[in-house]
């Protein structure tokens, strides 16, 4: 369906409200990407300054979530949106919740990175962790691109990347468990690495959620808790 953008309402004020909401979601998404980028640099390269930056900057993302929630509440109360407008507002409310959580996970990665010493990094499968980080960073970017362009097919492609992220996570955890069995004295730093890895995996899950909201907005189909095959079918098939 041609959703006609958000500039075709008879009420110009309504157009402006919706356009502003989308712009703010993109800005929030940009901040989240920056946080994740910095968190990965802190974790993989041991960049302490980036780690501290991540830990002290998360409040900006939280503030944007609160502000966007308020704006969406106002639109619901004043405009009583219907059809694609209603689905947009619902998708935004859910998307910003996941973006805020991705911000939290990035903060956690940054915090864990600050605890690690160089030798901890050398003992861990850092190349694999970096690959997982790059993968989920790509998922966040892809999910935000799909949201910006309201592209359901791209959303499916990005969501499918979560299979790879889950496999990467499993492999890293297996490696770390084996290492712990052989080096029981290293529990505290390895646990930090486990938590950071877990956060990266969760970022993949939350990017997938955002892709599901994009499909809901564009196609009017709720694809949560369905298989990737079903998701692809709903995203590309007839709307009804």
């Amino acid at each position, binding site marked *: 369906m*041609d*959703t*006609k953008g958000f500039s075709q*309402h*008879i009420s110009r004020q309504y157009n402006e409200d919706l356009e502003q909401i989308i712009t703010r979601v993109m800005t929030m998404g940009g901040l989240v990407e920056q946080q994740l980028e910095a968190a990965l640099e802190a974790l993989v390269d041991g960049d302490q300054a980036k780690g501290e930056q991540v830990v002290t900057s998360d409040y900006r993302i939280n503030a944007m979530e609160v502000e966007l929630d308020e704006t969406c509440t106002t639109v619901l109360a004043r405009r009583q949106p219907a*059809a694609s407008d209603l689905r947009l507002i619902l998708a935004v409310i859910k998307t910003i919740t996941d973006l805020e959580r991705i911000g939290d996970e990035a903060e956690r990665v940054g915090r864990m990175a600050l605890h690690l010493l160089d030798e901890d990094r050398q003992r861990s499968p850092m190349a694999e962790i970096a690959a997982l980080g790059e993968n989920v960073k790509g998922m966040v970017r892809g999910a935000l691109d799909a949201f910006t362009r309201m592209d359901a097919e791209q959303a499916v492609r990005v969501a499918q990347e979560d299979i790879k992220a889950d496999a990467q996570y499993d492999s890293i955890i297996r490696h770390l468990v084996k290492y712990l069995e052989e080096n029981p004295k290293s529990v505290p730093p390895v646990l930090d690495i486990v938590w950071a890895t877990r956060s990266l995996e969760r970022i993949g899950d939350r990017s997938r959620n955002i892709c599901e909201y994009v499909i809901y907005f564009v196609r009017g189909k709720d694809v949560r808790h369905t298989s990737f095959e079903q998701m692809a079918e709903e995203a590309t098939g007839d709307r*009804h």
Partner: protein
Amino acid sequence: METELTNDTATEARQTMTQGVDNDNGPSQKERPEVRMRARDLNLWYGSTQALHDINLDMYSREVTALIGPSGCGKSTFLRCLNRMNDLIPEVRLEGRVELDDEDIYDHSVDVVQLRTHVGMVFQKPNPFPKSIYENIAYAPRLHGTGTSRAELDALVESSLKRAGLWNEVADRLDTPGTELSGGQQQRLCIARAIAVNPEVILMDEPASALDPLATATVEELIHELKDNYTIVIVTHNLQQAARVAGYTAFFHMGKIVEFSDTDTLFTNPTEQRTEDYITGRFG
């Protein structure tokens, strides 16, 4: 909340609420109920101007069907076809069928006055007779012979006013003129008058557009209650009202039905672009 919950009663309440959840097979498509009225290939002309084009619509028993669409789209014209109100306009020509319980209401054998006792109408502007509240209700049953004795009429007036949610407000002043009531009360009096002859279908043409928000809410609540016993077809310009009261909604545009579906679907995920544009306030 009216009753204060302790932690124990809250836990118990949650456990009760979750019983049977495992057996829930998930959301299912709404099952469409029995059809009470049906339009088939209905076309209507005012002189040489065609106002309705091939209208096909099922109106379900004990459901509210809303007709929405821009001014001049044919929704009120269609509503008036359902109890032959258009018969009164000389230049109207009609083709097709309108059925009530599978019988064609335009058949030669149909008595229009009797038809209108089966298919009642409530108008935009409350139009009580310039008579007492009592007589507003009793007039038609007396005319049709469905209430003859004073006791029968008394009972009918009371039950009709109760069903219209007006009894408590007027019980002690049944002799005062209906026109002295407030706008919202007058509209409920008209609804009571319509249900006094025990119709199967109630047609409503913008029944709340002349009322303030509180009176509107009262009338909408009444529509919700009446739905259990009657088939209701309502024309409204207020999209939120359609969304609030109707189980099914038809979108009319330029004399045609563009889309008809259950109200939830129509207002969250319509199929047709024209429906989408109309309900979201976009340029069509």
